[in-house]
């Protein structure tokens, strides 16, 4: 399988009055055609900043992309998403790459009917003519499971429930046959029964259209159900990348191991303590010159405090940013 997106050494910083926030410290990953890559991490770990950097959605200033490249395999050859001109960028956003935001109510325009919002995007990117765009919009609304799509075409976002709004967001994201859809915590604000519906819908659409999906979440349960591969982020770095099964069976970074252990297990007896990761994530204003996780790491040793570990390959498609070999129980 060939990569549709390859990101290398992405560095994003925010220049604020308090100082420089080191939001991303060299993030590298790739996305294969048609696969689902889940990005997990806690708040402030850089999940959303990574995606917004790629699509140039961050306010600049204060943000600045300092380094890196993001090669997207377009139909007529590879392009670097970070070096696009304004009109090229417009062609990518919404056309080649769809974005599903967490909060559908603030992502949709409240004074424009949902039909018009979807149609507008189709006209902008595909320009099939007003009538065809309208038909396609209604088809899309039906496709994402909105009952009575024809009559709902002229409704405003507030007239939809939370789950239905998220379906509209999905319709917007896939309206122009994108190659990649970025889903930024699309189910976090929803109830579990509705979350299950949205996950099912996303999977179905992905199978039908062969879209590659980047799914950002902090819920390791959701990841287990949707992902082919997982990228774990901590304090602005990708600390582990792995195929999903390997990650859950053989986490190779102490942070991933800690996260998995902190989840309550189904069928576990009451009174059994949850394994917790002591401490809190570091302040990104003054990032240390050593492993970001060393403070909280149960395995830390002298080398962890001397330099930032590189990404080690520990198996087929499995990488970890850690000096400690957890299988051999000794430093690498």
């Amino acid at each position: 399988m060939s990569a549709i997106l390859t990101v290398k050494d992405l560095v994003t910083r925010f220049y604020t009055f308090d100082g420089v926030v080191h939001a991303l410290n060299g993030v590298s990953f790739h996305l294969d055609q048609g696969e689902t890559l889940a990005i997990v991490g806690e708040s402030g770990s850089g999940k959303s900043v990574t995606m917004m950097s790629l699509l140039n959605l961050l306010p600049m200033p204060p943000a600045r992309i300092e380094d890196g490249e993001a090669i997207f395999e377009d139909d007529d050859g590879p392009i670097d998403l970070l070096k696009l001109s304004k009109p090229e960028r417009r062609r990518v956003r919404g056309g080649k790459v769809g974005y599903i935001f967490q909060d559908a109510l603030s992502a949709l325009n409240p004074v424009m009917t949902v039909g018009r919002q979807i149609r507008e995007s189709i006209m902008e990117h595909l320009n099939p003519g007003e009538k065809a765009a309208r038909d396609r919009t209604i088809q899309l609304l039906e496709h994402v499971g909105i009952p009575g799509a024809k009559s709902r075409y002229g409704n405003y976002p507030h007239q939809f429930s939370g789950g239905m709004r998220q379906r509209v967001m999905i319709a917007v994201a896939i309206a122009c046959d994108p190659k990649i859809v970025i889903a930024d915590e699309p189910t976090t604000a929803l109830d579990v029964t509705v979350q299950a519906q949205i996950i099912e819908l996303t999977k179905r659409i992905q199978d039908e259209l062969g879209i590659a999906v980047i799914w950002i979440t902090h819920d390791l349960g959701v990841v287990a159900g949707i992902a082919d591969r997982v990228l774990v982020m901590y304090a602005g770095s990708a600390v582990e990348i792995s195929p999903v099964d390997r990650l859950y069976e053989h986490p190779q970074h102490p942070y991933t191991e800690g996260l998995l252990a902190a989840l309550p297990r189904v069928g576990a007896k009451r009174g059994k303590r949850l394994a917790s990761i002591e401490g809190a994530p570091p302040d990104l204003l003054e990032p240390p010159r050593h492993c970001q996780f060393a403070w909280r790491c149960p395995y830390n040793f002298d080398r962890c405090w001397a330099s930032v570990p590189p990404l080690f390959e520990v198996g087929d498609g499995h990488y970890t940013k850690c000096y400690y070999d957890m299988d051999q129980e000794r430093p690498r």
Partner: protein
Amino acid sequence: MADPNGHPPAVEHPPEYLVRVEHLKKHFPIMQGIVWQRQVGAVKAVDDISFGIRAGETLGVVGESGCGKSTTGRAILQLQPPSSGRVFLEDVELTGLNESALRRIRPRMQMIFQDSYDSLNPRHSVGKIIMEPMVVQGEMEETDRRSRMAELLDLVGLNPNHAVRYPHEFSGGQRQRINIARALALNPDFIVCDEPISALDVSIQAQVVNLFEDLQRKLGLTYLFIAHDLSMVQHISNRVAVMYLGKVMELADRDDLFDDPLHPYTQSLISAVPVPDPKLERNRRRITLKGEVPSPARPPRGCVFHTRCPLAREVCSEEVPEYRGIFTEHFVACHFADPKGGSKIPV
């Protein structure tokens, strides 16, 4: 059988229960008109629920947004006076107390909120925040208050020297610890925890849940633990109540509820929760409910769940199912619930 109003028979709660709730209702009126206001309806946030909480146990309350779980917690503590029904703390009927009597009993029951930042005064130091309940109660000297405050900070795992700091200087998990310390200031018996960990990151959630459990063991606390995260509720609770549109759908011992859920709603709720195990997830057959929760201002007739229930038949849209015991200590509000599994959704 159900009485003519569709109320379940009064559930008898033996004296070992610390808190008893009987036919609790909280309806919020919907008003219309500018000068001449008139009530045009009511949001039935909590609609006739009964249960008891044993001393020293954790009763988990789960349900989706708008099911009335937070309102239940507030109505029990009389933060929002119930529309009808009775609430007892041991032998004292809270629903019958006047302001001053309620104030005297308040030290015994406390609440911890979801938003740890909004519930702390940003202009007060942490020490002042934790000492405030003692000041209000007015039974302690200044020096005693200070030493008690230091003791509390230590108890919840914070450095007593941090008493001079302000809430914004702490992280989310630490702020929740401050909230816990304040709730413990007057040695309560009963604490309502309203989604106390929902806003925290996974690695911090575990720290705070462990703290809740340690404190319960040390101080013999009784919790009403409200959450929407089923796996956390399963971890922390002794018994669990499942709510939907203002009603308790099922209440049972936590192992009975999770191993053998009788109500179709509980079954689908448990089935909808993603499990952190990719192999299990791939082979899982899921019960996916259609639609979303109806508005509590216009709840469906009959069983409130019938609009989404895969097992619904005619009787469900006509008659309110009785909330009754199927097994010992396992209560369900479903017409088809029986020990042979009549309310099981075939997967």
